[in-house]
């Protein structure tokens, strides 16, 4: 029974980890971190809303996240407010709504298992259906990147130039943000709402320390996030601690190691340059 749970958690951690790492790098490069942040909190609010109205937290979270990803850009254009400000305003609203939904949800609030799953995550929430949906999302995500990589990389390099050359930058950006929202919703179950955002961006920060090639950065972020997920799940089972927290600690440790290695690498490069001079 336990080994089945561990296996499910590891599989889910592997897929969600890779998706999170990849999403973090893409969002960082595209400068849409605040949009991803707002979308992620929309997912959290949607999951919390499910406690009040009933229904599947994933479905409600996904709906709210996708709606947010789609409306943020046009809303910002319509209101003539910068996108960052609009995103952070939405983030605050979703945060407030999350707490309101948690408080008004029936039953013992913060102590209940369902609330715990949303806030802190749980490996018990990893079911076969969840794994199937996560696998489907992973396949869609990979296909999207592989098929459209030429245009996506052009946007990652310089969105304004890509637009000037006829790439539909808005459509690709919204699609990637919507995928980021979906990734957040599904990762929420394992890591919890409070920690999912750090898991998007810590592996991206680590990968940026280690490589100077965009494909390697995306791959490294996915692998590092995957490593921290496996380590976190292992630690969680061994020490009986929340799985999300253990994964974040693992990811942060990797970031510290990557940053240290990067310092040595830069020093070595400087030495080589001064030797050549």
């Amino acid at each position, binding site marked *: 029974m336990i080994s089945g749970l561990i296996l499910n958690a590891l599989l889910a951690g592997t897929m969600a980890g890779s998706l999170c790492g990849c999403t973090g790098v893409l969002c960082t490069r595209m400068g849409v971190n605040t949009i991803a942040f707002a979308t992620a909190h929309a997912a959290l609010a949607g999951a919390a809303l499910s406690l009040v109205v009933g229904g599947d937290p994933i479905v409600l979270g996904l709906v709210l996240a996708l709606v947010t990803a789609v409306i943020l850009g046009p809303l910002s254009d319509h209101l003539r407010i910068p996108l960052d400000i609009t995103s952070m305003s939405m983030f605050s609203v979703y945060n407030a709504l999350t707490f309101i939904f948690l408080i008004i949800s029936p039953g013992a609030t913060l102590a209940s298992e369902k609330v715990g799953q949303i806030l802190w995550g749980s490996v018990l929430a990893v079911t076969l259906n969840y794994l199937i949906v996560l696998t489907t999302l992973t396949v869609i995500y990979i296909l999207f990147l592989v*098929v*459209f990589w*030429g245009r996506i990389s*052009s946007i990652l390099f310089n969105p304004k130039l890509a637009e000037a050359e*006829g790439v539909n930058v808005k459509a690709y950006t919204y699609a990637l943000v919507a995928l980021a929202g979906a990734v957040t919703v599904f990762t929420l179950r394992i890591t919890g709402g409070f920690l999912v955002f750090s898991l998007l961006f810590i592996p991206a920060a680590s990968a940026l320390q280690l490589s*100077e*090639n965009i494909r390697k950065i995306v791959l490294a972020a996915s692998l590092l996030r995957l490593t921290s997920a496996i380590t976190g799940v292992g630690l969680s089972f061994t020490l009986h601690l929340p799985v999300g927290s253990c994964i974040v600690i693992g990811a942060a440790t990797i970031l510290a190691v990557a940053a240290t290695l990067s310092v040595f690498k830069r020093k070595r490069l400087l030495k080589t340059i001064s030797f050549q001079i």
Partner: protein
Amino acid sequence: MDTWLEGEVKLKPVQELEKNEVYAVEFQGVSTYYFGEAKPAITNVWLKIPPKSLTLIVGPNGSGKTTLLETLLGLLKPKFGRVKLLGYDVPEQVNVARRMCGYLPQDFMRPPGEPFSVKEIVGMGLASNKPFGKLNENDWLMVEEALNLVGIDDLANRPVGRLSGGQQQKVMLARALVRKPKLLLLDEPFSALDETSRRFIAETLLPSLIEDGCTVVMVSHDVSFKPKGCTMTVRMNSGRIVEVNLR
């Protein structure tokens, strides 16, 4: 040969077209404002640029030269007037027209950690014109040709952030050229180049592009520098066209 078009400030000359030709660029009373600004960045611009010509747009910093190019490409939306790019209405049909254009932006410098190689960046220039943005072997050969044309084929696999300003500007020029554009828009293309490179581009490369049927619009704040084959010089000041000189 020359005809004259009624504008706000003074009469501006335009060249007549041959049968079945359209102007590469048309501005009809265009004014563009930046977000939150009460004063327009360009005001009541009337301009027609014929195909297969080289037009130089000059003027001091802040005179509206870059705004003019960005309005033309639909990156900025004009508040008044009408813009046509290669005969297509902007912004309604701009994506069709954009695919036939090459653009070298003014802000081309990348930070040292930029994770793309020279070859990848030039290849991106073809992404918008290919189904799903996928490049084939022939496309990569075109990338090599473009790099060779601007003399940086030896830098193909280097990360762009490790290159000098002049080399990076050549990378962006190669990206604009690899698209085999009908209209090439160059924003301060010589700002980081050495004398030899400037001379090659101005006296050999641009005239050969025009011979092949390309229209070149070049923005520069350096009024003393005029590339070979330049047929029209447009002078801007405070967002307005103040003078147009034909060759």
